[in-house]
């Protein structure tokens, strides 16, 4: 110990003297410069050098940034008005008749499926359902602007995206009925769809968890060099989760080609947006993460299409994330476990259903072009209903998955401890066959 102190003492003493000398010299140097310089500008009117914000300048005004400054409020991009009239012709994406009729048919098919599955839940035939009423244009408009190889990570109210990519009515029904034909093997609640071939990652209930995953997947796609992006859908409520924050920040700092597509439908279950945030919606957050952002009329399928197409181009070509906020309105209840009349007026709902609906807007456009009329409407309605009812009946009849599916896919391999538990389960059920719904399930 004594030796350590002995070693340290001269070191410290020398340091003090040295530092004092150095400081003194520096001071003299600065002073000489101060006296001899003609102008003090270079020293005192320099740009800030703080590493945390390199592009800012100094100001002598004490001024807070006001979020309500009208200059900063982001406008809603639209292409057609509420009567389906194109406002500026050059913005009409001029999609071919076939594509538009297909879009319209699928939007109404989704609508028909929603009605029937909603009713079937009311009758206790499926356990749960969530409709897509009012948000159809956000699904089909955005899906049509993507490439099939772009990976989609959604929340749960994006069934139209799947339908656009080719998910069949049978696929939807099998999942909702959790029968043995469900690709998800009946393990999740209804509307938690997924499809490997359609590059639509299986939905989970946990809100916003898909968002940082989308950033990661986009980063991996970028490295794989296939020129694809990730489309990540989420609601205005989910955007309040911590995962949304990390997703935006990761995507921006790591240059991930991902489109964050927010469906701002005014409500998160019963919580209106004024209780969700105080800023200018979700789009304004893009700037704070260094992300390009845009707000679009979510009931205008062409506006959504144009915005998504452009966003995709930016994401893929420039390897940077884009934030899209589609303004819309949730016309239906949050889910079958919710009665929205408790927290909002019927009048409000009716306005959006009758006066500003994405489906009727597209129909006006088609009728103007002479691509659709009342007869076709009647005929298609009938046909769509028939198709849905057929798939519905088939899905209802099918057996549920075998009991073994309870134990598989926990890990890739069927681990010994799960094999053991599977055997225990089977042996038990064999002893009490009448206490379990074995007849509903396929044999192992």
């Amino acid at each position: 110990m004594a030796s350590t102190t002995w070693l340290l003492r001269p070191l410290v003493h020398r340091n003090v003297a040295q530092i004092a000398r150095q400081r003194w010299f520096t001071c003299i140097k600065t002073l000489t410069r101060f006296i001899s310089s003609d102008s003090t500008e270079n020293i005192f009117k320099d740009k800030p050098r703080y590493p945390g914000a390199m592009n800012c300048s100094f100001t002598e005004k004490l001024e807070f940034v006001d979020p309500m400054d009208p200059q900063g409020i982001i406008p809603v991009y639209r292409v057609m008005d509420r009567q389906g009239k194109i406002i500026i012709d050059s913005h009409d994406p001029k999609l071919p008749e076939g594509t538009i009729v297909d879009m319209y048919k699928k939007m109404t098919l989704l609508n028909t499926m929603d009605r029937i599955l909603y009713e079937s839940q009311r009758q206790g035939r499926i356990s749960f359902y969530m409709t897509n009423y009012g948000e159809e244009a956000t699904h089909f408009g955005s899906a049509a602007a993507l490439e099939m190889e772009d990976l989609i990570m959604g929340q749960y109210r994006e069934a139209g995206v799947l339908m656009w990519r080719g998910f069949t009515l049978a696929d939807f029904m099998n999942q909702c009925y959790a029968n043995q034909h469900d690709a998800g093997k009946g393990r999740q609640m209804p509307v938690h769809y997924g499809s490997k071939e359609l590059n639509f990652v299986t939905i989970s209930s946990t809100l916003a968890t898909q968002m940082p995953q989308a950033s990661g997947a986009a980063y991996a796609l970028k490295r794989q060099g296939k020129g694809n992006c990730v489309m990540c859908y989420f609601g205005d409520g989910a955007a309040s989760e911590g995962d949304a924050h990390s997703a935006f920040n990761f995507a921006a700092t790591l240059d991930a080609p991902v489109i964050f597509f927010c469906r701002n439908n005014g409500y998160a279950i019963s919580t209106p947006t004024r209780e969700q945030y105080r800023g200018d919606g979700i789009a304004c957050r893009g700037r704070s993460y260094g992300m390009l952002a845009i707000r679009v009329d979510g009931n205008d399928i062409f506006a959504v299409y144009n915005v998504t197409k452009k966003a995709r181009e930016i994401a893929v070509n420039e390897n940077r994330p884009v934030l899209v906020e589609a303004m819309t309105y949730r016309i239906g209840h949050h889910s079958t476990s919710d009665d929205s009349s408790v927290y909002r007026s019927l009048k409000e709902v009716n306005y959006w259903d009758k006066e500003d609906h994405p489906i009727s807007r597209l129909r006006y456009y088609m009728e103007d072009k002479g691509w659709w009329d009342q007869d076709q409407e009647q005929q298609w309605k009938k046909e769509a209903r028939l198709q849905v009812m057929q798939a519905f009946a088939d899905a209802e009849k099918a057996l549920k998955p075998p009991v073994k599916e309870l134990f598989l896919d926990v890990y890739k391999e069927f681990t010994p401890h799960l094999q053991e538990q599977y055997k225990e389960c089977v042996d038990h059920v064999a002893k009490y066959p009448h206490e379990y719904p074995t007849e509903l399930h396929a044999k192992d």
Partner: protein
Amino acid sequence: MAATTCRLRTLLQSTILLKKSTNSFLKNTSKAISSPGLYRCRSTFTFVPEKAPPSEGETKKMNFFQALTDAMDIALDTDPTTVIFGEDVAFGGVFRCTVGLREKYGKDRVFNTPLSEQGIVGFGIGVAAAGSTAIAEIQFADYIFPAFDQLVNEAAKFRYRSGNLFDCGGLTVRAPCGAVGHGAHYHSQSVESFFAHVPGVKVVIPRSPIQAKGLLLASVRDPNPVVFFEPKILYRQAVEDVPVKDYSLPLSEAEVLEKGSDLTLVGWGTQIHVLREVSKLAKEQLGVSCELIDLRTILPWDKDTVCQSVEKTGRLLIAHEACHTGGFGGEIASTVQDRCFLSLEAPIQRVCGWDTPFPHILEPFYLPDKWRCFEAVKKVISF
């Protein structure tokens, strides 16, 4: 100008004062280092290097963190989709585990992320779901909890809930864990039992450099998400001759390190080295022959190896740093009790951290050190 000079003088004086106080601080510190005041910094175990079998080929002296770097080097080299990321990994990591990897493999493969654990794990799941291999680092296991949702609700259930359409099996999350002498609440925790309750993830903890390399490579290549805990006190302290070749050690297989006939000792991570000393003490002072088992994988764990051992010895002592209640020792004890009821000759002993937050200055009294374990050996032998 006079005022300026005056200010400068004050500044100078304060600098000298600062230096003076630094001087006295240094004096005090030098005193402290050699005084018993920092007893807590001394580890409560001795690391005994093991020998890799000659069949494993050429070896190189590596400490624990170098063995991990070597494993990651091989992972990056053998699979071009592999990426490594986390807080501060780019310059080599706060524990030096990723030194040199960025220079060797490029900044798109070894990179820093923003400071957000939920983001890191979520990002990693996404990388893995897109078919690439992700090695994510959480700076301390204590800070893994913000990512608990992503690990428990997402990573663990990804394959199951999609009916095997999608998975994130390419994800490995590394996190330094365990006591380090002075880490207090948030640089000491052993959090494995939180994850032991999560079907779908694997939980792995190595005890030495040879183990660390083999188990990390196995974890990275395992088709399931793995949480890989690294006892941080071993990073520099544990040095072994580690095979330089690319090798994996099996997951979900415990390892019998010492054969014995009177008592089974089960532990993992650093605690293995404590138990090794306990085994020696028991032999020398009590003439008790201990069978020492390193569990290595917490989930899914190797029931057969542990139960076979207990059937032979009839007695079991489990020791872990994590606190007693809800610790993984409870799971082992109840399974062994169920399977080996007729072989057990004494109650199963659990020597664990106390049911308190991990303390700072009181760490020596908190840890299940060799003397507490030794006392439990005496108890179980004389039952």
